[in-house]
């Protein structure tokens, strides 16, 4: 059984609670692959280097980081420093880890021309170093898992011209889960799950079947849209979108917390 865990890179994510719980489960014999984000670390490093974090808005109003040639270097280093911290923490709990800061673990295609809105007017962006994921080094992950290691993957990919690219962490996790035919993809972040009412944290949609996902997509706003896209792309038995800010977030999610998306539409079963 192989499980894939994605923890967000945002400020609100409680990394320590997650790593402690993950270590317990790995020590109990479970096989996990960990993918992490890096947004907070990248913003912090850019600030320390006096580089302004620029964002650009999509025609649909979606705001995200503009990763130009300078920012992708900062992004890659910030991702590596988060990776190194996670390696140290898990290793401190006795877990054998393999920190993979890429970029060669993930292949991606750079978006050559992107339509965006700048100062309220439409522009073509040609120097953004984000990419659409085209593949992942499954053999490397399987080699490490079979040898008893926990791969920890940074959200950095390599483009066709060998350039480093910023890729979405949730979609890396989906790609890894799909490639490994994992039994579970768990995405932990600073929200309790897919909410019926985005302002009511108690309105978590508990579970639905993967084939019904379209119906639930209009509940999703902002980052949650990417998580549902990830669930769709993973296309595996079970995806859980849950909250990292609980005492034992992984246990809680496996015991039913968060939004559970089942491929065969089984009911939520106690998983651990």
């Amino acid at each position, binding site marked *: 059984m192989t499980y894939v865990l994605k923890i967000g890179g945002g400020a609100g994510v409680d990394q320590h609670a997650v790593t402690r719980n993950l270590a317990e489960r790995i020590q109990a014999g479970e096989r996990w692959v960990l993918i992490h984000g890096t947004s907070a670390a990248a913003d912090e490093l850019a600030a320390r280097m006096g580089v302004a974090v620029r964002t*650009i*808005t*999509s*025609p*649909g109003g*979606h*705001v*995200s980081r503009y990763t130009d040639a300078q920012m992708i270097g900062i992004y890659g280093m910030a991702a590596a420093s988060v990776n190194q911290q996670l390696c140290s923490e898990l290793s401190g709990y006795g877990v054998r880890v393999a920190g993979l800061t890429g970029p060669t673990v993930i292949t991606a295609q750079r*978006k*050559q*021309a*992107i*339509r*965006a*809105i*700048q*100062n309220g*007017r*439409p*522009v*073509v*962006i*040609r120097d953004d170093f984000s990419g659409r994921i085209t593949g992942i080094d499954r053999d490397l992950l399987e080699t490490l898992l079979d040898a008893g290691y926990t791969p920890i993957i940074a959200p950095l990919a390599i483009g066709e011209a060998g350039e480093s690219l910023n890729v979405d962490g949730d979609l890396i996790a989906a790609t890894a889960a799909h490639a490994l035919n994992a039994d579970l993809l768990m995405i932990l972040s600073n929200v309790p799950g897919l909410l019926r009412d985005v302002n009511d944290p108690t309105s978590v949609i508990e579970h639905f079947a993967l084939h019904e996902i379209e119906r639930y997509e209009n509940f999703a706003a902002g980052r949650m849209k990417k998580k549902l896209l990830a669930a769709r792309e993973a296309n595996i038995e079970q995806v859980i979108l849950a909250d990292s800010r609980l005492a034992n977030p992984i246990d809680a999610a496996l015991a039913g917390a968060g939004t559970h998306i089942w491929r065969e539409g089984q009911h939520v079963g106690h998983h651990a």
Partner: protein
Amino acid sequence: MSNNNVECLECGADVRVPGNVMQGEILKCGDCGIELEVTELNPLTIDLAPMEMEDWGE
């Protein structure tokens, strides 16, 4: 080509260029509706905007 107009590459009509035109700005030809891309500011250079473009962040 007056200093704030360019000639549409598709139909030759005059296309207005904003005073604070931006690198990569998309200018729409009022006559034929084609989209032009400002590929360079100095000198002001335009080209047909690429047909398929992704939306930012999608």
